[in-house]
């Protein structure tokens, strides 16, 4: 199991910075950079490039290897692997490393990397051993060994001349408590806040496919709870839910005590300091009692996950003719209390499409009623109600955007297009993305959050928010 290193490429495919490839020749990293750039050049869409690229050996002395790569903003992170490595290890590590960079640098871009190359180098050194073993990746522990740029700035200005004498025998920041002195790898000791607070965001995403009869073919709600803990000392939290039966397939942060969760569905944990993802889950709208090894449950014939109602409805009438076609799409909200926001509907009109003429309008229904919670003021008069359309000629995608769809209102888009080829071949699917604030599909409710702390006694401020988004493929 070994990751050979990390290479970060800029937008043009040129390397910005890379970890030292110590157990291989210098040509090795170049080989991988070339392989990725070639593959990207060949592909029509960059997303169509396999995420694990096979890299043939440059000469017979070297074995072949593979390159795992992932795009982040204007950068591309490569992780060459040789030997029989778990590519997921590479991706998991890349993700972790990118998260660390984000925490250290704020935004991750070619400019910030160049500005802080020494920090990035130190991070390479501390997070990935040259033999390919990931080392320290908990940012709590990392901050002890690699001082984040902002903190270092502050230290330099505050400690002045004393700085030099202390740094060699410990650390300016952590001299009192040495690094890695904490028994919990994810939390450092001696954290102190004036205002103790802990926040939870419950974020759910719906992914669904609806067929042309309007029947939901497949739907899946993936949720996660993100937390931001600013608590002093070593707090012990226990969080329970009033309706834990909606949670399924839970994946928990390592800080959560698994046996407590399995026994009484209680999240008991000592949180890391700062932001972290407490748990990932699937919303099962049709909870089954989980089978136990002693009782054999009957195999259910159909999928155990029943389908969730989609928050809107689409009626699409598309007529295809020779060298073109016309379409009339209506989107109606099915929600009566929540507004759908930032709706983006994409229709791929197929190769050679062009000559788009479109008209967007707000249909009947819903009246001027706007979600009581929302303070937005909408102009409800016809086409100027904020909805718009655009066409990406290169990808032949027609995009229809509606900033806000108030409860039970309906919207429509009609128009026509022409194609260069005789038979138009648009995709038979409309891809719709949307957000809903202050709402979760699962209606997961936090029952109680207890924060206990042996040494200090404080009452932290606690907050829970929910938000949802969705990505629906509606076929016609």
């Amino acid at each position: 199991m070994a990751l050979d290193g990390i290479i970060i490429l800029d937008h043009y495919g040129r390397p910005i910075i890379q970890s030292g490839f110590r157990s291989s020749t210098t040509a090795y990293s170049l080989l991988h950079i070339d392989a990725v750039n070639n593959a990207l050049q060949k592909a029509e869409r960059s997303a169509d490039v396999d995420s694990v690229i096979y890299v043939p050996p440059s000469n017979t002395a070297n074995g072949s290897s593979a390159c795992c790569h992932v795009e982040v903003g204007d950068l591309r992170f490569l992780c060459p692997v040789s030997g029989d490595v778990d590519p997921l290890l590479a991706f998991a590590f890349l993700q972790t490393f990118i998260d660390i960079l984000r925490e250290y640098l704020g935004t991750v871009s070619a400019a910030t990397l160049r500005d802080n190359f020494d920090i990035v180098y130190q991070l390479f050194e501390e997070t990935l051993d040259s033999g390919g073993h990931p080392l320290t990746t908990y940012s709590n522990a990392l901050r002890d060994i690699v001082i984040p740029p902002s903190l270092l700035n502050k230290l330099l200005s505050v400690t002045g001349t004393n700085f030099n004498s202390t740094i060699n025998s410990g650390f300016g920041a952590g001299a009192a408590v040495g690094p890695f002195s904490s028994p919990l790898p994810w939390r450092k000791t001696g954290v102190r806040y004036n205002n103790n607070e802990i926040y939870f965001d419950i974020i759910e995403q719906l992914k669904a496919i609806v067929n042309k009869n309007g029947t939901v073919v497949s739907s899946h709600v993936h949720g996660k709870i993100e937390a931001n803990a600013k608590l002093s000392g070593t707090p012990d939290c226990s969080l329970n839910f009033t309706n834990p039966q909606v949670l399924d397939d839970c994946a928990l942060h390592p800080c959560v005590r698994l046996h407590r969760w399995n026994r009484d569905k209680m999240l008991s944990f000592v949180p890391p300091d700062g932001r972290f993802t407490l748990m990932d889950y699937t919303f099962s709208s049709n909870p089954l009692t989980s089978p136990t090894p002693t009782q054999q449950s009957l195999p259910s014939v159909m999928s155990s996950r029943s389908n969730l109602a989609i928050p809107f409805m689409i009626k699409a009438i598309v007529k295809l003719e020779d060298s073109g076609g016309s379409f009339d799409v209506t989107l109606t909200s099915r929600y009566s209390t929540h507004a759908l926001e930032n709706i983006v509907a994409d229709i791929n009109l197929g190769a050679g499409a062009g000559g788009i003429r479109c008209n967007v309008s707000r249909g009947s229904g819903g009246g001027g009623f706007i979600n009581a919670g929302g303070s937005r003021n909408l102009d409800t008069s016809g086409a100027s109600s904020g909805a718009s359309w655009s066409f990406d000629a290169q990808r032949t995608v027609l995009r229809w955007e509606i900033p806000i769809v108030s409860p039970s209102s309906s919207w429509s888009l009609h128009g026509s297009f022409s194609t260069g080829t005789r038979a138009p071949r648009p995709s038979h699917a409309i891809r719709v993305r949307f957000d809903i604030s202050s709402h979760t599909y699962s209606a997961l409710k936090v029952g109680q959050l207890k924060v206990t702390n042996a040494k200090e006694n404080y009452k932290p401020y606690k907050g829970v928010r929910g938000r949802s988004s969705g990505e629906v493929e509606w076929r016609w």
Partner: protein
Amino acid sequence: MSQPGQDAKFFQRGKIEEFRAELLAAETKDKKFVKRKTVLKKIVANITMGMDMSPLFPDVVQCLGTPLLEIKKMVYLFLVSYGRSKPDQIHLVIPNFLQDCNDRNPLIRALAIRTMSYIPIPVVTEALSDNLRHALKDRDPYVRKTAAICVAKLYSADPRKAERGGFVELLRDLMLDSNATVVANAVAALSEIGDRQDGVIFKLNLATANKLLAAIPESSEWGQIYILDSLLRYVPERHTDAEMMAERIIVQLQHGNSAVILTTIKALLYLMNYMENRQLIDYICKKMGPPLVTLLSSGPEVQYVALRNILLIIQRRPTVLKNDVRIFFCKYNDPIYIKLAKLEIMYRLARAENAKEVLAELQEYASEVDLDFVRKAVRSIGRLAIKVEAAADDCIQALLDLIETKVTYVVQEAVIVIKDIFRRYPGKYEGIIPNLCENLDALDEPEAKASMVWILGQYANIIDNADELLDDLCYTFLEESTEVQLALLTAVVKLFVYKSKVDKAKELVHKVLKWTTEEADNPDLRDRGFMYWRMLAINPTVAGEIVLSEKPPITTDSDRMDRGALDQLLLHTGTLGSIYHKNPETFIRNAAGKALKDSPALNAHSRAVLIPLARTQLPSMGPIVVAGPGPTEPQAQSSPVAPLPPAKTDVDTSALPTQSSQLISPTQDDVANDQDETEEDDEPPHSTQASKLDPYSNLDNAFGGYLADEPRPMASRQHDDDDDLLF
């Protein structure tokens, strides 16, 4: 003062001489070492840009005495980059190394040994050996965990020396350390050593394995991965050992890290080979499904790895994800490699109960834009018809609808699969032949054309104008590809056998036989022409019986990979091997192969298909032999994996030093006991295809290229029921 965060300006190419002068100047009047720091940063930035800064070696080394950690780190970075290339000057640094190894600050102690381990030069290795021994027993866990990894480096620099120095034993001791991270790193180092061809074999006994499991909750995710992975080095001696261990690690399926999940699944799949409790196995299979589904909500990169692994897992353990076929429905926007992987899984998961849903999806895909995907979707409809009898009617109807669209490539794919459907259900669907004949002109690809010709010949007796149609097709006989020519030859012979009285048939067969024997360049075609000619000349009746002999109906049940090969591949779950669906030692140099090891606890079903592993020594030069995916190749060729030797020896593995090179044979008795359930597996599982350097070159097949599940005679394997695969 150089402020961090504004260092882009250092990315200017500098001259060696300038840097040297600046370093020299910095030796005096350098308040707070600011000047030195600035120069060093410039130098490091130049290394990043690929400039050779090695001439500065003696100058930079001078800075090592500076009591500032930041400077020390940069000098060490420089040393790591150029130390190897300066064997004559490296001795200058040794005193500094030694001093830092005894520093008060554990970070510096660790930094020093880590840096030394990166420089595989005898003087440094020598100095490292002594200090490493202390570091492994350092009171600070950070130093111990760093030292553990350094042992692996020392080992790769000089294996025998590291063994003589007793470092392997020291590492073993560290597995019992009180700090979980130290334990995990010791395991990582031992694994790395064990994976080397010349390394000390690393295996675990029950006590150590349990001790490692206890360290899991406090480890970082990477540590957990090392520990879980090392469980594959433990061979359970009793069923209960395997079962208890599985119960202990099953909670890790709830981990947030995808690599941990997949490693856990790998360990569980491995342990299941040593279990006998049916209910527990069933339970574990059920538990593995949801985390795999969770992986699919990650980015496309992770999805891809997950899908490839799911494809392997469900072939071996069909109960996993049995009811979740909908999760794999393709989105319009999925990257093509994700779509193809999903398509293959959908086909594998299709059963009578969900065939309707799957078919509806496949029909949807057949109208998509992406040509390659559409073809695969159409083929999948045909395969579905062959696999699930209950859905065959609907599939045929779907294919006929697709033929109606007259889109040429759709029609061609449909014709190809319909040919196989005819063979699977003889006498059932021949009524649709007229529909096919209408589209004869649309066929321009050899495979589709050959398929249609086969249909025309095979059913010439019920196609009234078969002679005319074949005659038309023969106009361009000499320009056709060999595939089509061969099909035409056979078809006209069949036509003649059916309708020997008809003049046109006589004329046609004569014409084609003459062409093939006199004008064809291809020896196969010519030989076949002669063969038919002689058969027809000697005894037309017998020739007819031979040409139109009854064919065994076909099935795609056999398109699963061989059981034994699957068991072996699953030991590589989550690794490159499982992505390429090949054993890694066949395409990665120096990769150690893995094989299930026999033990009293190995359940009979797994033992029956056990593939022993030879520690392959790959040739140091020349092409690397790559094994193709199991099902594609003909069965018996020279094989990298030796076929099961006739089992006679009763090997008591517990008594032997288990080397992976050992061929462990199943005992005759065990095989005999289970003969009735396992007779399907009596063939050598894996055969080679001559050197294909690029494992990707075969990926198409692995994705369910049609070849991969070339329908085969039904008779040979009919007893692949799911129950059998529970073990």
